[in-house]
């Protein structure tokens, strides 16, 4: 999220609209955007119907026990990302899709784990290619 926020100007310059999809209700999502100064619009999907429509899967139940996921969690905590009460399904995997103005998904990223997100540079490079 912080990386995306810092890259907003570059996304604007690329002519792209960035919209987040989250599992909170409108009230929860509004609170989140206020608390974290999120400069993007947000779609609220507490029942994960939009996640499912885009074929985003859930992590296997034992996925949290994998060393790579545990390590990423420790690194996030070391950077000051605390553990709060989760809002949404903790097993839901994230993803990123670039959709052109004709409604075609031109690039996609299906996360292998909850911390597997493409860097803004990678997203911007994909945007430049369309």
């Amino acid at each position, binding site marked *: *999220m912080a990386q*995306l926020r810092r890259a907003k100007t570059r996304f604007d310059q690329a*002519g*792209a*609209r*960035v*919209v*987040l*999809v*989250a*599992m*909170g209700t*409108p009230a*929860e*999502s*509004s609170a*989140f*955007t206020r608390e974290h100064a999120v400069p993007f*619009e*947000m*779609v*609220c*999907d507490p029942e994960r*119907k*939009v*996640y499912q*429509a*885009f074929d*985003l899967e859930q992590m296997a139940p034992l996925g949290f026990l994998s060393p790579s996921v545990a390590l990423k969690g420790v690194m996030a905590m070391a950077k000051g990302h605390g*553990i*709060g009460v*989760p*809002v*949404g*399904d*903790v097993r*839901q*995997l*994230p993803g*990123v*899709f*670039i*959709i*052109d*103005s004709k*409604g*075609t*998904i*031109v*690039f*996609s*990223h299906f996360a292998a784990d*909850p*911390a597997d997100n*493409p860097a803004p540079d*990678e*997203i911007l490079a*994909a*945007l430049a290619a*369309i």
Partner: protein
Amino acid sequence: MEKDHRSAPDPIVTLSDGAEIRLSRLWQDNPLVLVFLRHFG
């Protein structure tokens, strides 16, 4: 990121201000980067 060529789903979605729109409204004018987050917290 991997290349893809599928048509995007177009459900009715709810924005954080409570408004309901077709998802396609979001890509009509500009390419859309749709970022699905993991859980909050």
